[in-house]
Each structure stands twice: as structure tokens, then as C-alpha cells.
């Protein structure tokens, strides 16, 4: 059992407010990922949970008990740092056993625990080495091992994979996900890589400038972004965010005028700001656009990226407005072609002039990711 609850948690350095009131309830055994652009306060929030940073205002509860003033080591959490922060003069074994040694656990028991963690992470052969004699991936594993050995209630990760190369990152990603199932503990994971967030999280928390923009499962965020920021942040290639003008709005949906004059009817519940003539943003995932001779959008192909299994086509539909279209297979589109694009309107997102999403009316809700 390990839940973490934040209520109206704030952090400020002097009069600079970094975290501006965060409410969040993390369930037992949940894998929660904090994502957001650099400097949005992800690390700060994580460090406040860890106890490395004071909480300026608000309440942090771990397992229901207020933990604001509990020292870091007494919170029952373990953290994996971006720089690994291994003790350079200690062997791998001593690094992993350090916390147990400080806790006064007898040598035999300590060795057993370290060995257990080393087995899980395939570190048995490296126990006598110093961190300086390990590769980046191995160091990462030792850092995780050091956390595992303490059998914490909650694991905290601060961008643990950002120092690894791409292929190793994928491998470690899978390993951490496997670890989560194996250990069945709550994990909080910070990253600015939305792919890591999408692939690992039970729930994603999107942060911007010290505020939560949206909390939800990866697919909820993908299909039902609450605002333009989340829409642009989640998904790769990025969602096309095209400026449009509202033409009319009714109970069944809204009609917008796209760049180039094409009219598109989107089945969404219009919000109060969706008055005719007002500006809005049309959010279209690349895979929800198709080439079609009677589509409402038209433009010139600017770039074609062949990925083998699929093709990304960048079409310039207005002055400096590029939209990305994802086509299956290796399509026969060429740079300079005039193309028309059709929209799968039930999958289109419409954001009002306040940048907030209008609720889609005819889209299937995503299935929850259960445990």
C-alpha cells in the first residue's frame, strides 16, 4: 500500500513562484509520469515529494499521513537521479548496501538483499567494481538497484534515461516497466520525453509553468487533450494545430473555415467562446488526415519523409501553415504535388479562442488501462 496525495502544493523561491498549486492523487501501485517542457517544475515537484525540497504551502500525504515535515529518509521513498549520483569511491555492492548499512542491518541480511537486487538487474558480476568502471547503462542499473534494495513504498525517477543513447534508452524503458510489474510498487517518473510517458505510464500528468494542465491515461491524453498545450505536447509526430475561424455552432457540432477557405463540420459541443467569427484552433492528428480529391483542405507537398512502413507528408495549406499527414505504406506522393486532404471529423479536436477543448460528441471513449 502506498498512495501519494498532493493538495494545493506550492513552491516558491523568494517571491518567484515555481509550483503554483498542484492537486494530485496517486493510487497504490500506479505508474505516474510527470511530463512537461524544460523548466516547468517537474523535478521540483518530485523533489518536494522526496523531501529534498521544502513545501512552501499545501499538503503532501504519503499513505494518508501528512509528510510535509518528515525527513527524506523517513518517508519510505527511494529516488533515482538523472546523474545516477552513485558514490564514486564505493563498490557497486557498497553503493547498493549503503542505506542498509546505515540502518544497522546485519551483514548477512544486507548481502542477501543486495544480491537479490543484483539478480533482478543482472549486476551480479559487477558487484566489486567502482562506478567509474561501469558503462552508462550499468550505472543506471546500479542506481535503480540502490533504490530497490531499500524496498521503498514509492520509487521516484528523475529523467533516469536522459543520459543514455537511443537504443539503450528503449531497453531500459522496457526494463523499468518490467520492474514495475515485478515489484508492484507505486512509481513516479519524471521525463520530458513524451514517448517515454506514453509507453510507460498508467497515468500521465502534464505540467506547464508549475501548473497541471491535464491528468489522464496516455490514450485519454492522446484522444481527448484538454487544451492546445496538451494536444501539441502529446503524440509524435505532433498533432497539427491549424488556425481556423468559427462559422457557426450548434448542438450537433461546429462548422469552421480552414485556411484556403474550405469548410469543415466538426461534431463537438461548442463552448461559450465559440461565437461565429471568433478564432479557433483545429487539432488534427496526422493519421486522421487522408489524401482525397474532394477534401476541404488543399495545398502543396513541401516535404516527404519515407519511413518504410509509413510515409509522412508535409503539406503547406496556407501561408507558412504546414500540416503533417501520415500515410500507410510508401505512398506515391512527391514534393511539389498539389493535393487535397480529407479529415476524419469524428477524430478532429476543436479548441476555442481560450485554447480549451470542446468536447467531441461522436467519438468512442478510450478504454481505461486497468491493473
Amino acid at each position, binding site marked *: 500500500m502506498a498512495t501519494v496525495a498532493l493538495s494545493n502544493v506550492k513552491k516558491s523561491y523568494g517571491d518567484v513562484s515555481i509550483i503554483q498549486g498542484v492537486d494530485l492523487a496517486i493510487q497504490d501501485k500506479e505508474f505516474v509520469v510527470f511530463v512537461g517542457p524544460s523548466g516547468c517544475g517537474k523535478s521540483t515537484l518530485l523533489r518536494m515529494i522526496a523531501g529534498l525540497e521544502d513545501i512552501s504551502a499545501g499538503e503532501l500525504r504519503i499513505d494518508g499521513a501528512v509528510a510535509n515535515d518528515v525527513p527524506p529518509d523517513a518517508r519510505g521513498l527511494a529516488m533515482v537521479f538523472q546523474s545516477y549520483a552513485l558514490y*564514486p569511491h564505493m563498490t557497486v555492492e557498497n553503493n547498493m548496501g549503503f542505506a542498509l548499512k546505515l540502518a544497522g542491518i546485519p551483514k548477512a541480511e544486507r548481502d542477501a538483499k543486495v544480491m537479490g537486487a543484483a539478480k533482478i538487474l543482472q549486476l551480479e558480476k559487477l558487484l566489486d567494481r567502482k562506478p567509474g568502471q561501469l558503462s552508462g547503462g550499468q550505472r543506471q542499473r546500479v542506481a535503480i538497484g540502490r533504490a530497490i534494495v531499500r524496498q521503498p513504498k514509492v520509487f521516484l525517477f528523475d529523467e533516469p534515461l536522459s543520459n543514455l543513447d537511443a537504443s539503450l534508452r528503449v531497453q531500459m524503458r522496457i526494463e523499468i516497466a518490467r520492474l514495475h510489474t515485478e515489484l508492484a510498487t507505486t512509481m513516479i517518473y519524471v521525463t520530458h520525453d513524451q514517448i517515454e510517458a506514453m509507453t510507460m505510464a498508467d497515468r500521465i500528468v502534464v505540467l506547464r509553468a508549475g501548473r497541471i494542465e491535464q491528468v489522464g491515461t496516455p490514450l485519454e491524453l492522446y484522444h481527448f487533450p484538454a487544451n492546445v498545450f496538451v494536444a501539441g505536447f502529446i503524440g509524435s509526430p505532433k498533432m497539427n494545430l491549424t488556425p481556423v475561424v468559427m462559422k457557426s455552432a450548434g448542438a450537433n457540432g461546429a462548422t469552421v473555415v480552414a485556411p484556403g477557405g474550405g469548410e469543415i463540420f466538426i461534431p463537438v459541443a461548442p463552448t461559450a467562446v465559440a461565437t461565429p467569427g471568433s478564432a479557433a484552433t483545429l487539432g488534427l492528428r496526422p493519421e486522421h488526415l487522408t489524401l482525397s480529391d474532394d477534401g476541404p483542405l488543399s495545398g502543396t507537398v513541401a516535404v516527404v519523409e519515407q519511413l518504410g512502413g509509413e510515409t509522412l507528408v508535409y503539406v503547406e495549406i496556407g501561408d507558412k501553415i504546414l500540416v503533417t499527414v501520415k500515410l500507410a505504406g510508401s505512398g506515391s506522393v512527391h514534393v511539389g504535388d498539389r493535393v487535397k486532404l480529407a479529415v476524419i471529423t469524428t477524430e478532429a479536436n476543436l479548441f476555442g479562442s481560450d485554447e480549451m477543448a470542446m468536447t467531441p460528441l461522436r467519438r468512442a471513449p478510450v478504454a481505461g488501462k486497468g491493473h
Partner: protein
Amino acid sequence: MTSSSLARDVAPKLEKVRRSKRGVDTRPLVWPSIGVLLVWMIVPLALTLWFSVLNYNLTDPTSTGFAGFGNYLYLLRDPALATALLNTFLLVGGVLLTTVLLGTLFAVLFDQEFYGQGAARLFVIAPFFVMPTVAALVWKNLLMDPVNGLFAYFARSIGLDPVVWFSDLPLTSVGIIVAWQWVPFATLILLTAMQSLDREQIEAARMDGAKALARFRHVVLPHLARPVTIVVMIETIFLLGIFAEILVTTSGGPGDATTNLPYLVYKTALLQFDIGGGSAGGVIAIVVANVVAFFLVRTVARNLDS
């Protein structure tokens, strides 16, 4: 791969690169500077060695000719040499211990953030800029003087008899002055080292349940091990030659209680005008310094390797 095998693999390649790029032997170009350094070092050394085997006393024109090892034998039989050696080691050892301990303490303290940190750092470094003679005079006359000194004033104000520093604790007094001058150096080096300590390591230790003392012992101290060896090495070289502080405060006395090797050489050569004996003392000092340096360098090298 060990560094030596690395060197073996890489060296020939480097060699080739160097040859092919220049096609000229560059060694003659450095000979002039090596020559100057050699002359600079060799001439005084040779003269010292030469004088040390002569009967050469400025007050006695009749004392001439080759003395063989006479000067050395005379010195080695003289109990003053043993005392001087002991004083040298006590002084060097004591000052090293004090400066490293205080330097570490200051480094850890001044690494914390507090109001006026910049000014405080400047003050702790300041003694380093005071000339040894001036420092010794200030300590002797303003602080440690049994009548007019600040310490005596404090002692009297709490009803104690003032300590007569340079009579009762001569070597300790000199040691205190020298330590005062060298603490800034140790602090400076160790403070820089503290600033290069990865903050996340400290935080990891906090998460691991290490309290302040345990963090110091298991994270900070190992990190400071190398800079401490550097401080010890550099200070030793300078502390073996302490002279001005002794001359200004005690003139080697009372008796020979504060006479170290350099001071003994000075007394022999310049107070007794015995150039031969003084040179022999100088040679002994060189031997001692080299023995010490040899062991120091070896320890440091081993420390840097691990």
C-alpha cells in the same frame, strides 16, 4: 584496459603522427630552456656541495683547506642537529594536522549558503596575503605578548595568569603563527573541491538515511581525500623551509627549542660564520626534503591512481 597498455597502444601512433606532421626533430628547440634550468639548479647545488667539504670560516682566515667529511661528522655529532630535525618534523607535522583539520572545517562551513558568504570567504583567505615577517610580528607583539598582548588581556580579565607564549610554549607558538598563515591555503583548495562535489550525491545520501555526520564521513571525506593529499604535499615543501617566523619571534630559542633545519643552517653559516658547516647542514636539509618528497609523491600517486 590499464593506462600503461593504453599508452603502449597509442604511443606509437602518436609518434607517427608527430613525425609525419613536422618531419623535424623538435628536441633541440627545448634544450636552451632545459639548459637554463639545469644551470640554475646545478650551480648553487654544486657550490653548496663544494663548500660543505671545505674548512671555510669567515672569522678564521687560518682555517682553510679540504675538510673531507669533517663538517658532516661535526654536525652529525652535534646534538643541535637532532633537535633541529625533531623540531622540523614537529613543526611540519603539527602545522599540517592543524591546517588540514581547520581547512576541512572551513571548507565545509563556507560551502554552505549564508548571508555575507562572499565577505566571509575573503576574510578566511586574507592571512595568506600577509608577509611571514609581518604576520609573526603582529602575533608576537599584538596578540601573544605577555604584557601588552590581546591574549594576556583576555587571560587577566578572567583572572588567569597570562601565558608567556614564547618562553613556555615556544615551538607551539611558532606553530600557531605558521598554521594561521597556511589555513587559508588549505581552505581555498578544499573549498574548491567541495564546490565540485556532486550535489545529487549528497541528496542520494540523504535519501539513504545518512545524517550530517555520516554524509561527511561517507561522501564528503572520500571526495576530499585527493585534494587533502595535494595540500599536504605542497604545504610540506614550504613548511620544511620555515624561517622568517622563527627569526622574528624566537631567533631559534630559548636555547634551541625552536631551531629547525633551515634555522640551524643560518645559525651555523651566518651567525658563526662557518660556511663549511652551514653548507653541510644545507646538504642534510636537501637530503631530508628529498626523502620526504619521495614518500609524499609516492603516496599521492597511489592516491590519485585509485
